[in-house]
């Protein structure tokens, strides 16, 4: 149980690191901590705040434990404890992001970003994507936000680790 929670939150925290964020009017390119911007033509002039120390160090601190705020662990399902789990707040270069998931009967019933890099989340689009891949392969620099990932069938267990879950979480209302 503890291990599952840890694994889950490590994943979420990792995904959070992949969050990019763009405002209503302008896209912002994301780069991974270990990669520099490889010729991506997007400009982030004037729209981002920078958090200089946050990028590369956050991935190591992001694996800290989660806080279950409810528990009804039905061991019968065997696939995880029920409850609501809130990941650690993770500093990204765009601000602080925190994700909360709800698990019922071993299934994720909701995932939500509880803390956004902006005070008015509804006005913002938060996008999550595989930054390393996109830096090389984005269709157009200005539409660098993936909406869905096509791949071999994702099982329910694999969903929380999937990029799709992060994309969904960014838009759950």
């Amino acid at each position, binding site marked *: 149980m503890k291990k599952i929670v840890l694994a889950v939150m490590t994943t979420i925290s990792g995904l959070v690191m992949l969050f990019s964020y*763009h*405002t*209503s*009017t*302008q*896209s912002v390119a994301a780069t991974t901590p270990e990669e520099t911007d490889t010729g991506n033509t997007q400009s982030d002039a004037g729209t981002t705040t920078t958090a200089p120390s946050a990028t590369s160090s956050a991935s190591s601190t992001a694996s800290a434990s989660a806080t279950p705020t409810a528990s009804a662990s039905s061991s019968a399902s065997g696939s995880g404890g029920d409850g609501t789990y809130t990941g650690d707040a993770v500093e990204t270069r765009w601000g602080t992001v925190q994700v909360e998931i709800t698990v019922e009967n071993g*299934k*994720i*019933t*909701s*995932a939500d970003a509880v803390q956004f890099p902006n005070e008015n989340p*509804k006005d913002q*689009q938060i996008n999550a*994507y*595989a930054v*390393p*891949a*996109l830096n090389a*392969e*984005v*269709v*157009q620099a*200005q*539409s660098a*936000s*993936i*909406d*869905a*990932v*096509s*791949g*071999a*069938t*994702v*099982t*329910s267990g*694999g*969903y929380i680790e*999937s*990029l*799709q*879950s992060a*994309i*969904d*979480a*960014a*838009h*759950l*209302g």
Partner: protein
Amino acid sequence: MPTQVTVVTQPRQDVPRRAFVAQIMGLPMSIHVRGPQALGPGVAAAVEAAFTRLRADEAMFSTWQPDSPVSRIKDGRDRLVDAHPRIRHVAALCELAGHRTGGSFAAWLPGPDGRQRFDPTGLVKGWAVEEAFTALLADLRMRGPHDALICAGGDIAVACSRADTPSWVVAVEDPRDRSRSLRSLELRTGAVATSGTAARGKHIVNPSTGAAADGLLSATVIGPKLTWADVYATAAFVKGTAALPWIATLPDHAGILVATDGAVSTIAGMTAQATRWSSLASTV
């Protein structure tokens, strides 16, 4: 005096958008809606109705639930000819899929006792998702211009009824490293389906040999309808390297194949539309 024509070149980024997730047919299913009512209760109800349709199809077609109508046909308790029209419709589609794929897709496979058993699972997911998505689009249309996307465990359908929004961006996963994407496609309307063993191991059987297909790491097919993109992706995966020339014969479809050595092939179908998809895929 000449008329001023303003050309909007930048898609709007401020259109309201909301995602919904449910677990149906053992899969995470995500629906994204973009448009004026996306955050309202009407759209939420329309999406819930789509999930309800999918749950109804799950109850009808499940082969995991031992007493579902399809399970009863599969193990011989009931006859297909007496089945619900929806089940017979799917059986007919499976027949058509067998013809269109040259036998690389089959809903009738021999069981352990040698008896042919009806299992339309390989077609049902894509078909049910397409049906629910089509109904959702009709619902949304009444509430204003909305774009929508559905992702069912890695198979995707998208539609746009607006002209001022960015295209949906669909990434195709790298089967060797599932956190990375091989290609990204911009689609306004259409479907993308991928068949492979990265998530579930070797579970796709070649109906003509009964052996697990292992000629490719993954096969992705892009086309206008999810039912057929899904069937063709499964068939392409079964065909292995032979899928390369085969996909080129499919009207309106394009493909991305990943060979066991990691080599990526991009195949255009026969029409301008598919060529456009393909050129997108190969330039990114």
